[in-house]
């Protein structure tokens, strides 16, 4: 059984994380959250079908990752006020899983930028994605 590794993210907003997961394109599940209730209502499942103690708000199930993969998930940490990703030690060596987690972080950061730019009433001049995946956004104040 592969243990889960906790990866800190800069994601602080569930809406942005949801948008990022949609961008990445892998099917995901989101826990139903009641007002004032615990956000992390989904259990992660290992590659043998075993339910793990880790619970999360967002999960990509192993069937969408690979035959030997474990679920990956994002847990809301109330004290840190941010999300942490759970990735099994085994899956950290798989390029598709590593890429998915990195893409989610990248897209969430992008949506955070666009949200803040709009809130600030700034104008987007250009958006470029380099071959390495780096996103460059030029904005201008009015």
């Amino acid at each position, binding site marked *: 059984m592969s243990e889960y590794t906790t990866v800190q993210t800069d994601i602080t907003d569930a809406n942005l994380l949801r948008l990022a997961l949609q961008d990445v394109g892998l099917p995901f599940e989101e826990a139903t959250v009641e007002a004032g209730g615990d956000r992390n209502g989904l259990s992660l499942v290992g590659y043998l079908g075993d339910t793990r103690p880790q619970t999360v708000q967002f999960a990509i199930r192993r069937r969408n990752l690979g035959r030997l993969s474990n679920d990956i998930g994002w847990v809301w940490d109330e004290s840190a006020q941010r999300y942490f990703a759970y990735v099994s030690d085994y899956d950290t060596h798989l390029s598709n899983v590593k890429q998915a987690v990195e893409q989610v972080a990248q897209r969430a950061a992008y949506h*955070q930028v666009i949200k803040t730019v709009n809130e600030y009433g700034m104008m987007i001049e250009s958006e470029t994605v380099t071959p390495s995946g780096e996103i*460059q956004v*030029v904005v*201008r104040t009015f």
Partner: protein
Amino acid sequence: MQYLITIKNGKVTITVQGLAGAGCQGKSVEFAQLLGGKIEMTEHTEEYYAQVAATAQATVQRQ
């Protein structure tokens, strides 16, 4: 004021393009904090250059 925002590996870096007045710099820092990012490089303020020039002049006068 123009900003170049670079997003790499989920990290945000903001570069201020153009000469920034002191007030604009404060806004840039606030903007960067809202983005959860950092100011990588910024032009110095006119006040900064004036301060550097004044310090250099004072040094020359003391010699």
